[in-house]
């Protein structure tokens, strides 16, 4: 199967410091791919550059066409969507308005339909629909960020640490939703600190170290790789 997203030889620098160096990865339609790595490895930088928020060298190919010159806001319309590490919610607006704006590029009729789906997936958001996003709890904010991303009906959803700061029960919920989304045909590129859960959910995985891809392969293989176990799963050593 040809890749939905292919990142080829991507390098991203902040000033003169290169945070991502010559990274290549791909995500096939309907696939869950995870990128794991230590703090500061460059995972968020990679996702932000793939979204078009950061200038980068190298190629980003989405659905067969080079989208390097497409602005982030137009990548959304193509079906690429990022839940950023900082969530970037509209804090002074209601939950419902945040969600509706998530569908800014899909058209009104589809928006109403998708909103019902998102509310079905996150009943908590329906309860809190009139509350300001800035007053939500941490977990609710994650749900809203994911819900808002789903409102754009992405074909590829990039999630930057969706389980950050969540209770174990909620983490399990989030991963259930990720698997569920794949079942509806959405491809997912997942960046996680929680390497074990990520490797469990993913089909394939990349390990990032100091801005480069160190290891890659099927997630189940990497999960049993002793080098991974030592550094990322908190075993051995």
């Amino acid at each position: 199967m040809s890749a939905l997203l292919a990142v080829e030889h991507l390098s991203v620098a902040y000033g003169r410091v290169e945070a991502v160096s010559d990274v290549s990865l791909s995500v096939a339609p309907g696939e869950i791919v995870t990128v794991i790595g230590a703090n500061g490895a460059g995972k968020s930088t990679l996702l932000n550059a793939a979204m078009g928020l950061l200038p980068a060298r190298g190629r980003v190919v989405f659905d067969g066409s080079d989208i390097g010159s497409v602005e982030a806001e137009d990548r959304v319309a193509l079906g690429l969507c990022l839940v950023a590490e900082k969530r970037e919610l509209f804090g002074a607006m209601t939950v419902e308005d945040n969600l509706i704006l998530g569908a800014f590029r899909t058209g009104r009729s589809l928006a109403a339909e998708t909103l019902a789906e998102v509310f079905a997936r996150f009943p908590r958001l329906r309860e809190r629909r009139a509350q300001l996003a800035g007053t939500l709890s941490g977990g609710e904010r994650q749900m809203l960020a994911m819900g808002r991303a789903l409102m754009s009906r992405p074909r590829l959803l990039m999630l930057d640490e969706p389980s950050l700061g969540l209770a174990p029960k909620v983490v399990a919920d989030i991963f259930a939703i990720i698997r569920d989304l794949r079942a509806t045909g959405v491809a997912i590129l997942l960046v996680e600190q929680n390497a074990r859960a990520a490797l469990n959910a993913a089909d394939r995985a990349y390990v990032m170290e100091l801005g480069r891809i160190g290891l890659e392969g099927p997630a189940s293989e990497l999960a049993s790789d002793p080098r991974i176990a030592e550094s990322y799963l908190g075993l051995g050593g």
Partner: protein
Amino acid sequence: MDSTILLFLLQDGLTNGAIYALLGLALVLVFAVTRVIFVPQGEFVAYGGLTFALLEAGKLPGTAYMVVAFGAAAFAMELVSRRRELAARLVAREAAFKLGLPLAILFLAKAVVAAQPGAVVNLVLTIAIVAPIGPYLYRVAFQPIADASVLVLLITAVGVHLAMTGIGLVFFGAEGLRAPPISSAVLPVGPIVVTGQNLGIYAITAALIVALYLFFGRTITGKALRATAINRIGARLVGIRLALSGRIAFTLAAVIGAVSGVLIVPMTTLYYDTGFLVGLKGFVAAIIGGLVSYPLTAAAALLVGVVEAFASFHASDWKEVIVFTLLLPVLLIRSWTDPHSDEEE
């Protein structure tokens, strides 16, 4: 000072204050969405007022040509900046918006001048002529540097203000103009009279504020503009083009400026460069509102108007000084109460 004078000054102040409120709201809006401190806001007041006065006098205003010139400049800018992706469809669409539209407005203006259909049509036409200058201006001057710092944007805004004043001189000449009042009705209220012009100002200001409120609260475009103001990265992540938000904000600013100009030109003679001082009063109000709060800005604008009215009665030479001095205590209090933070969230 007896109570008649007091009431008279109060009315005078509130009337001007209503105009300052409109301008202050436009400044807050433009700053929130684009981070531009919109110094040239007053130029739109002058352009609007002068355009209306000329239309009322049965003459074709220079702005009808000016809008074509601005449109052509914006069109050229668009083509140059997107030269890599030039397709027939794109060029055609840009030509329609930036060349076709202003030309249509020019011909419409000529037809209206020939037909002389009255003040309401002239008001609408004034808005139609001045409004597109806003987005064209954004395209030419601000969109290319949309990511620059607030300071760079401010310096650009000052430059644009100077340029627009010069352009105003070219298209309108140095002569001042005044228009007949919207309505010559007078309404005695107790010891003072309220003119039809006053009522018109209150009504139109109130209507515009309500319209803006509904626009931001109810429409998806209005919400997108608010979203841009709250979180620019978040806005991009849901697919809101910052350039589009900028264009809409500048269009609203131009409309508000034009309407303000139409409202004041029957009360005071406007020159090509009068707008700046009027805009500055709106600016004082916007600063008191911290450049973020719409209600506070509107309230402050009324205060500015009233202070100005009393100042011009008691010390007319000093009225501007007194009005601008209002800023000092406000800035002091602000700097004490909310410690400065650069956080972007």
